[in-house]
């Protein structure tokens, strides 16, 4: 899977003087995941999937990765909106209840 990851090394500035100069931050800094938002999780049924890439194209969060052979989902950032499952003409994505 080729998706940005949480930077686990990110540390909060220890002193005021260590804060950024200006209201500035490095682009693409990720310190948290968004998975807690999800009630239903999309699961790709690889047997049905024909790799049409519609779900990859339409995911508002970009969590579906084309990969080399098959599509994969970055569950760290999937919010479970269901767009992928709804748009899949072959019904190859199931929305499955998250287990706590």
């Amino acid at each position, binding site marked *: 899977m080729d998706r940005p990851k949480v930077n686990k090394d990110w540390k909060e500035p220890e002193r005021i003087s260590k804060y950024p*100069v200006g209201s500035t931050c490095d682009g693409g800094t990720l310190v948290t995941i968004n998975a807690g938002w999800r009630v239903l999780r999309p699961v790709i049924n690889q047997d049905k999937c024909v790799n049409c890439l519609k779900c990859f194209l339409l995911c508002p969060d970009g969590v579906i990765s084309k990969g080399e052979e098959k599509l994969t989902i970055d569950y760290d950032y999937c919010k479970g909106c269901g767009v992928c499952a709804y748009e899949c003409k072959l019904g190859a994505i199931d929305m499955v209840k998250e287990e706590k």
Partner: protein
Amino acid sequence: MGRRAFICGNDAVAEGVRLSRPHVISAYPITPQTIAVERLADFVEDGSLKAEYMHVESEHSAMACAMGVSSVGARAFTATSSQGLLYMAECLPYASGARMPIVMMNANRSIATPWNIYGDQMDSMFLLNSGWIQMYVEDAQEALDMMIQAYRIAETEEVMTPMMVNLDGFVLTHTYEVVEIPEQKDVDEFLPPINMPQNKMDLNDPKSLCITAGNDWNMEFKIKQELDMQNSVHTIEAVDKEFGDKFGRYYGGLIEEYRCEDAEVILITTGSVTGTSRMVVDDLRNKGKKVGLLKLRYLRPFPAEKIREAVKNAKVIGVVDKNISFGYEGTIFTNVNSALVTMEKHPMSLNFIAGIGGRDIGKNHIEDMFNSMINASEGKVEERIQYMNVRCEK
């Protein structure tokens, strides 16, 4: 040695900006600033200034555009006045919060209504809290010199804060006088190319700018901004000293004391009224009066420590305010008084509100201020807030 020219304050600003080689100028006309941006257009036209000249559609956009320029690490200039400054007000804390070293000339002008195009300092007083360094010049030469100094100060890495150079409308912007224009090579030696290592958008090091920081983070960003602004006094003093060493003109850094030694009464001024006050001080000194003058060059950062030091032996000080903070008093008066209260023994203070809407401040009015201060120093009761050169009684 530079060349001598007989030019107005707006021209002097334009000359100073040309010598500072900004990458982009965003311009919107407003009286009495307009000549400055006209002159800059002339310079771009004749090729003596290689800059992008942007005809923006409002002051709000003039500042927003300057932000865009600064955000990629280029040098930006803009100029405004009065209602224009108020219209762009929203953008000023954006720029200062992002620590963009933009330099802006503000032609100090009255605020509507009643409508008025003449010089007072109501406009910039609104923006004391904008996070911009605010300085006030006394004449055209200082205006030119301060454009160069402003870029140097604003772009110093520890400062990295935008700077507003204020110039009294008409009295300075439209008055012609002899100005020495420095050589480009000397300015180039004094003012290095802009460098924003930490806070610009950079293709090699992508950044998010003007970010959100919620209640859990915001305060630390603001404190950092405040500490750096406080700290900028050292750069301001050092740059002024270095400028003097190179160009032969020293302005005193944050403040200038004029004949304050042994003075029992001291008048505190900003901007062009300082010049007229110098003459009055000389006259009174010739008459044996122990009077002095303290010129505030910077209102942000506020030179509280310098003021305390300068007035510590005075019995009475007076503050000239070309503005009114309605419902209270002159804004500079409030600021000065708060500096005084930490003194073990502080002088009594009077407020002289003058020059509103461009009303003349003559030598006689300044004499009246000194006389009032002298009376107060001798124990007479003087009104704490006095309006100078008014047509009729209250």
